[in-house]
């Protein structure tokens, strides 16, 4: 994409910025950044745009329709591998090191065919999309536990349908993320592994991104966004209740479920180390063919 549309300024001189996101708890800092005036402080007038499909967010960022987009780490690799010109500019969300606080679980029916982690080796496991972060992180976690992952079958379906499918026995196990984990637990399912934490603790799982062209033309805007997010992420980490409230008001999340849900971490800066590890496994499990060049994929600051 060459050139791209001009940035507009709002009345008080702030730069208007559209940020695309998928409707998850991961979006909380973004909303808080708006409502708490953090973006405004950094000269940005951010509007949040929600889309169900990540497949639409990256083209929108490339077209600079949404100047900033979001995708998880594996999708980022896949987009880059196909030659899409994206730059990762800031951590969105990640995982801590306490398995109990993981936002993600693999769950099974208590009376189902899968009773133990080892049984997962031959499970039919529901994930939201194949060849993606669920599949990769689960395989990573299981390998670290010494389970042979070659026999697992993954079945794609929307998160919202998984509990039902498991209950009916269409699948043997499901991979859920918050807040659906809470609903799954409430339905009486047994969690087996906390795959994000177990795959790699303290990892960044998703990044804010922009098109290479935009990053090149508007380094100071990207910098301002990145700085603002540092603050927003910190704020969200410090005020988990406000983070929960933000997704309830903005994304219509069910307050009961959200109140008990684990929150992801909202890490500072732009973490490359965990991406490196994910890249290795992504190649190994066939999500991408070759490891991405992280130097190119990651934005290296306004100096560049």
């Amino acid at each position, binding site marked *: 994409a060459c050139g791209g549309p001009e940035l507009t300024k709002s009345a008080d001189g702030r730069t208007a910025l559209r940020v695309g996101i998928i409707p998850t708890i991961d979006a909380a800092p973004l909303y808080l950044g708006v409502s708490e005036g953090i973006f405004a402080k950094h000269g940005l007038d951010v509007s949040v*745009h929600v*889309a*169900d499909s990540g497949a*639409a967010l990256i083209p929108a960022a490339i*077209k600079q*329709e949404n100047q900033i987009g979001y995708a998880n780490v594996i999708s980022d690799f896949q987009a880059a591998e196909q030659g899409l010109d994206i730059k990762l500019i800031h951590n969105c969300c990640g995982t801590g090191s306490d398995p109990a606080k993981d936002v993600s679980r693999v769950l099974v029916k208590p009376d189902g065919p899968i009773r133990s982690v080892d049984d997962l080796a031959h499970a039919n496991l529901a994930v939201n999309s194949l060849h993606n972060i669920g599949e990769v992180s689960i395989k990573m976690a299981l390998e670290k536990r010494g389970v042979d992952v070659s026999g697992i079958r993954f079945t794609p379906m929307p998160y919202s349908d998984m509990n039902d499918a498991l209950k009916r026995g269409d699948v043997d196990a499901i991979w859920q993320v918050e807040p659906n984990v809470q609903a799954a637990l409430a339905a009486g399912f047994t969690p087996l592994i906390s795959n994000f934490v177990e795959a790699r603790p303290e990892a960044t799982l998703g990044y804010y991104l922009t098109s290479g062209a935009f990053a090149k033309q508007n380094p100071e805007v990207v910098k301002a966004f990145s700085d603002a997010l540092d603050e927003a992420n910190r704020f969200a980490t410090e005020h988990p209740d406000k983070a929960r409230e933000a997704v309830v008001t903005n994304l*219509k*999340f069910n307050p009961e479920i959200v109140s008990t849900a684990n929150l992801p971490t909202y890490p500072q800066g732009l973490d490359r180390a965990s991406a490196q590890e994910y890249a290795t496994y992504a190649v190994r499990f066939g999500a991408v063919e070759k490891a991405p060049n992280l130097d190119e994929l990651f934005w290296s600051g306004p100096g560049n």
Partner: protein
Amino acid sequence: MTAVHAARTARPGWQLAAGTVVILLVLEEVLTRTGVLPADYFPPVSQIGAALLPELAGAQLWTQVGQTLQGWFVALLLATALAVPLGLLLGTVWWVRGLTRPIVEFLRPVPSVALIPLVVLALGTGKQSELFLATFAAFWQLLVATTAGAGAVDRVTAETARCYGLTRVQTLRWVALPSALPYLMTGIRVASATSLILVVTTEILIGVPGLGAQISLTRAGGSPDLMYAYIIVTGLLGWLINIGLTAGERRLLHWDAANRDDANRDAANRGSR
């Protein structure tokens, strides 16, 4: 004549329809309450209704309804405006039809959903994309209907037009179009649902504001009651739209055998004997 008469015959039908709907609703309630249908993911109507009520009172729902309706309407209008003249042309000029047939048949099965990334890239994530995808899908359906209808002109009627020196355009307007109209109106009712469905689907997938975006949000947020409430609003919208279309159709096609009041009344008399 038609309107008065329609009102008169519509009344008993209305009660019947309402009765059927009530029966179906009660059935759903009973089935979910008794656990024949899994209630936690397919909530009973009373629960959906309870979730819907506060929404009905708020302004937000109506804004979303308005946005979806607007998308539906503009897309259907665009599709009609494009498909009808083209369909008349294809239906009446054999060589144009021959020339374009493979391309038309090739393009028709292209799924709009697969086009989403391309459309987003070309048109962005705004209303334009929604309109494009909905128009694209509705267009082909209307084109088929119009082409078939224009091809079904009675031979004698067409020859009459030729004999009295009607120009090509006049023949299209006064002969081919009215002849195609019964087909076209059916096509419009098919395409109307398609347009609505695609508007809602793009709203779900790329987050254009409207009912679909709400469905997507409530689904992600783990509130199936609310999600079904929005789905039901979508269905109701489709139903209301159809009432409007059917009424319009009766006026427009009052001359068609299907709507000739007397003939129908006699037929009904015979049917009920």
